[in-house]
């Protein structure tokens, strides 16, 4: 599973999301925090969606989260995912104010519950996946 990068569709890197994607290449999950209103948000944007300030900075989150809801996908869009099915796609709460959509690997759908704890992949594994990806957090 590690090493070779799969032929997954990649995000289009631009001035809005470059820092986020670079953080993930280092195995980190970075989100934006607004210097004006103090709120944080995902996905990356050129303005704070709460107050429209452009005084934005990046904050690295601990990379732990909790499943809010999920789906097990047996018919992914892109052919590059066909050998990975089922794909567990979840809404994951990664901070008090932030839920995002992400894959959870190394888990069968039957084992996922609302509230299942997950953590980011290690940096050595991160390279294979275009976006922050999680695995069960066994602790």
């Amino acid at each position: 599973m590690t090493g070779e990068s799969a032929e997954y569709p990649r995000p289009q890197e631009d001035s809005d999301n470059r820092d986020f994607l670079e953080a993930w290449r280092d195995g980190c999950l970075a989100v934006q925090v607004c210097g004006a209103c103090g709120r944080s948000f995902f996905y990356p944007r050129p303005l704070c969606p709460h107050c429209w300030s452009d005084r934005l900075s990046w904050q690295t989150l601990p990379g732990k989260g909790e499943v809010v809801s999920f789906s097990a996908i047996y018919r992914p869009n892109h052919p590059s995912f066909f050998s990975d099915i089922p794909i567990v796609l979840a809404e994951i709460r990664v901070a008090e104010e932030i839920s995002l959509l992400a894959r959870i690997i190394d888990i069968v759908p039957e084992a996922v519950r609302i509230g299942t704890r997950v953590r980011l992949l290690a940096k050595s594994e991160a390279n294979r996946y275009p976006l922050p990806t999680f695995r069960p957090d066994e602790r």
Partner: protein
Amino acid sequence: MDATQIGIIGYGQSVYVKRTERSLFSFLAEASRHALASAGLRKDEIDGLAVSSFELPPDNAVTLAEQFGLSVSWAYLGTAGGAGPVASVINAARAITAGHAEIVLCLAGDNYDVAGHYRLMDNFNRALKNYGSPHGFGGANGLFGIIQRKHMETYGTERTQLGRISVGQRASAMLNDNALLRAPLTLEEYLNARVIADPLRLYDCVLPCAGAEAVVVGPLDRAPAGKAVRILAGYERHNHPPGEPAPLRGGWELFRDFLYRDAGFGPEDMDFVQAYDDYPIMVAIQLEDLGFCPKGEVGPFLARHSFAWNGSLPLNTGGGQLSCGQAGAGGGMIGLVEGVRQLRGEAGVRQLAKVRRGLVSGYGMVGYGHGLSTSTIILEKVS
């Protein structure tokens, strides 16, 4: 012009097909010709044009006018996905009220197939392309699997309840020659169908197809005798609630009270509901948020009602997208056309016996996790 004297004075639909070599314009043209004939108008009487279509770019409402040889004083490009067509009718009526046009042709349709739909969804907008597609998100199916599970976990909604929507609509589709799926469907078959994006199975999902729908909006007195349909009320909402990837609401709950206040009728007065049925779970959420039952109680509501054209709550009486197929943005107009057809008494073997008014709802433009747009209109037969 007096807003109460504006309505839908004609409608049309193209043939629906699973895949095609035909151009998008040819489907839009077919629906347009039928709508014009239904309105009893000549082509050059149209002075406003609205179109909703995913596959239309790089074309738009203005270049469509060129294709169709129309010169118009008002042009509108739907940007709200499956909520766009109902929104286009609301806006067309406003344009006529304000004197920008007199007769507006509203079109919606697409000519894709299953593979085309997947390509479309992978590139639907920047947020999905960048933060959905690279996860193998399964298009809309994966996202609505997440929403349905959340509804089931939060409120105890069951698949045996949701399935009654697909099963009821299929019974109506069996009386619709233009529905692509007309074989009988049992609840057992619904429950045990192939898993697509658990908890969604095959009959929770629509079949992407080619087709187009059209309505003509104009002064009620321009309709053929006895065929005018009044617009009693209409509202739309976009990007609600902001910042939530998988909400169990979409905006209907914000405008519901205004909608019924304007119409002068409540949900109990509706003789049919044409709800946007990309998935039964979204129909269920519309029934809740448009006041047919309290929030969170749609499961028992579904269990005690039946949804075929002759059921206790006539729902998507032509079979809806779940049985007819989803002709892209045309899916946002299929219910409008069916509602008008019913109110004009032209629904043939599935004609409702007693029909005075009904509700048509739109939903769509999937962004980061859910449909961003909602729209609803209440229609009444002019007697």
